[in-house]
């Protein structure tokens, strides 16, 4: 079965610091990759997704992620975080051929980011 690992469970940064959240997955085939964000008290929202093509994907709110196939990684980055980026971030994988009905995602354990003003 595929799995997704997010190595940082809690990250604390000051405003304007750069952010990189790690995500590694275990699946040898073609994958679709996602980052979701959950702001306090709100529902999960899609930040960005990778299907194919340019491995550097840009999402909303200045976030980007780079798919490195050789490292099975899809790390999330932002050059300069803001207090409003305080949230929990989830990496997720949907592998081609793994299921034939619906879009099941396998999620990582999440990373709680706190940005100090």
């Amino acid at each position, binding site marked *: 079965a595929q799995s*997704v690992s*997010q190595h940082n*469970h809690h990250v604390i940064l000051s405003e304007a610091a750069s952010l990189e959240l790690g995500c590694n997955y275990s699946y040898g085939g073609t994958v*679709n990759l996602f980052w*979701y964000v959950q702001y306090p008290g*709100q*529902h*999960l*929202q*899609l930040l960005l*997704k990778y*299907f194919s093509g340019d491995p550097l994907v840009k999402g909303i709110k200045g976030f980007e992620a780079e798919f490195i196939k050789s490292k099975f990684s899809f790390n999330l980055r932002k050059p300069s975080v803001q207090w409003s980026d305080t949230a929990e971030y*989830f990496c*997720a994988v*949907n592998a*081609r051929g793994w299921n*034939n*009905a*619906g*879009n*099941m*995602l*396998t*999620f*990582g*354990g*999440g990373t709680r980011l706190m940005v100090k003003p």
Partner: protein
Amino acid sequence: DVKVTQSSRYLVKRTGEKVFLECVQDMDHENMFWYRQDPGLGLRLIYFSYDVKMKEKGDIPEGYSVSREKKERFSLILESASTNQTSMYLCASSLGTALGNTIYFGEGSWLTVV
């Protein structure tokens, strides 16, 4: 905007009670999902449905059942609630069976079993 609505945001139930969590989506999506979210474990799939009256087990179906009588509604049932089912439950939906379609989530239902 896609809207996935979970009818109960906060519930407190006693051990052994039967619990219903209701979810409705308004975008005619074929696929609907129930996840539970626990600290450090991320989201884990309980059940999903790709059509009316169709259901498939996810990764952790034990202790749960589901019902999808209408396309827009997907219910999660805890036949006899236990304290280890205290969690945040998230409903989600997506359009079609093409891999990679965006999944939209509801706001979640916090269930405490005492």
